[in-house]
């Protein structure tokens, strides 16, 4: 009983934050799976989703704002792909990575410009903030909703990838651009759909994630973005189930570290975990052996 009393809140918090990381990590892993690109701007799209929410909620109802935030993230992500990545698709992979880093800084700088560097207050969403008690622990509704919503969305995504025509096209394109287009698949469309999914999920993740905090600033996307990226690498980048599992492991692990009183080191711990995994299994938990394109 004493054990539960002490640890349950941390485990619950870990599962919740894990779900939030998972929603971001899917964007990293899917884009990597298709373009072999680490989309460094992804964490900043996540941050911008949070920031836009701050502005939208002042005039619009909650549900409308959430829908618009998702739309905004999708438009931002697909536009970035069109402008900054598509023209470099046949260039050496390093060029497109550098372009991604550039876009990341651009998004941060622009956020800095808009906010004046001040931390904005993220709206308190009553539904998510409501207190609930589970056994000995008291927590917020968002902690309960997140894992279920995440699992539901991941389930839908896996169904899409495995059992629809566009999902089949995504799997084909992720292995071989040229042959896919020879079969009549529109590569650009498949890539756009990938960004739509990744950014849409990141936007949903932003609503859940930022409800845990009161403030948001231009750097707010960096740490969760990095954690989600680590989760994707941990799970084997390119794999959706891997990224989701990795995200939950990292979320729970870092909260357990917090529970032991080593809060200061909880971020560092994530990276130690990553290094260990990569030493034992360089391709991550579910990684393909042959990560390079055939």
């Amino acid at each position, binding site marked *: 009983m004493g054990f539960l009393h002490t640890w349950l809140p941390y485990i619950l918090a870990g599962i919740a934050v894990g779900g939030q990381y998972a929603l971001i990590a899917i964007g990293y892993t899917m884009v990597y799976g298709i373009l072999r690109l680490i989309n460094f701007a992804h964490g900043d799209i996540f941050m911008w989703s949070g920031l836009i929410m701050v502005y939208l909620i002042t005039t619009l109802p909650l549900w409308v704002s959430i829908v618009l935030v998702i739309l905004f993230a999708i438009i931002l992500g697909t536009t970035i792909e069109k402008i900054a990545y598509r023209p470099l698709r046949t260039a050496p992979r390093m060029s497109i990575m550098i372009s991604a880093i550039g876009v990341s800084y651009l998004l941060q700088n622009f956020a800095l410009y808009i906010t004046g560097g001040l931390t904005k207050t993220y709206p308190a969403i009553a539904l998510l903030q409501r207190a609930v008690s589970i056994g000995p622990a008291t927590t917020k509704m968002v902690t309960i909703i997140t894992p279920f919503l995440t699992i539901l969305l991941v389930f839908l995504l896996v169904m899409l990838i495995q059992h629809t025509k566009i999902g089949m096209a995504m799997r*084909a394109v992720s292995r071989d651009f040229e042959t896919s287009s020879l079969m009549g698949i529109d590569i650009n469309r498949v890539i756009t759909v990938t960004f739509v999914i990744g950014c849409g999920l990141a936007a949903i993740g932003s609503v859940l994630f930022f409800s845990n905090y009161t403030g948001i600033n231009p750097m707010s996307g960096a740490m969760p973005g990095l954690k989600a990226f680590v989760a994707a690498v941990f799970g084997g980048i390119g794999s959706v189930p891997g990224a989701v599992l990795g995200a939950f492991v990292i979320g729970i692990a870092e909260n357990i570290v917090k529970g032991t009183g080593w809060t200061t080191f909880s971020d560092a711990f994530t990276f130690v975990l990553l290094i260990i995994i990569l030493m034992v299994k360089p391709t991550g938990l579910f990684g393909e052996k042959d990560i390079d394109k055939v």
Partner: protein
Amino acid sequence: MLAIRDLNVHYGGIHALRGIDIDVPDGKIISLIGANGAGKSTTLKAIMGLVSKSTGHVYWDNTDITGMKTKDIVNSGIILCPEGRKIFPDLTVDENLSVGAYLRKDKVAIAKDREIAYDLFPRLAERTWQLGATLSGGEQQMLAVARALMSKPRLLMLDEPSLGLAPLVIKDIFSVIQKIKEEGVNVLLIEQNAKAALDISDYAYVMESGVISMAGSGKALLSDPRVQKAYLGE
């Protein structure tokens, strides 16, 4: 009918195709033979709109398809079964066929063509759920041909379908190619195996370093001493 006129392709500084003309009339098997690096695969890729820096024209049923998107070219009835099979390794046999029919919407007809494909290659019919990667080389080639047929092409282009296959499997594939032609599909065939290709071709072109150096009926080329010396190893 497909007509290639004065086609040129550059890869950076390499002038890979130097103004070639090829005709693929309806209901015929036309083959293109030549040494490694002659530009055969480049020709087929250029027809499919896969190489960017090309000049000249490709006419398909009197429409100029030069510069069209690959997807639209596939939609117009041309399909390329690429060199090295290129089946999708982590898709099942059945899914590989579905990708071949990607642009088609007629579900009933697709299901029928799937059955026809499995009839043509019974070995695939036993392996519908097997992943592409786990097929043998010969089965992969059969799958590549079957996948191409799923687009219901009016022109089937095959890039070295016999590569690395045992003689018996080659015979199978070639007899299928002939069946396909009898169904009224035009065939443009690239082969290293010049003898087998010329045997079944109505007409053939010989390519050397990016130009067409000889052309004639399959029979005529088979008996041409220059062809015999250079490509038939006689």
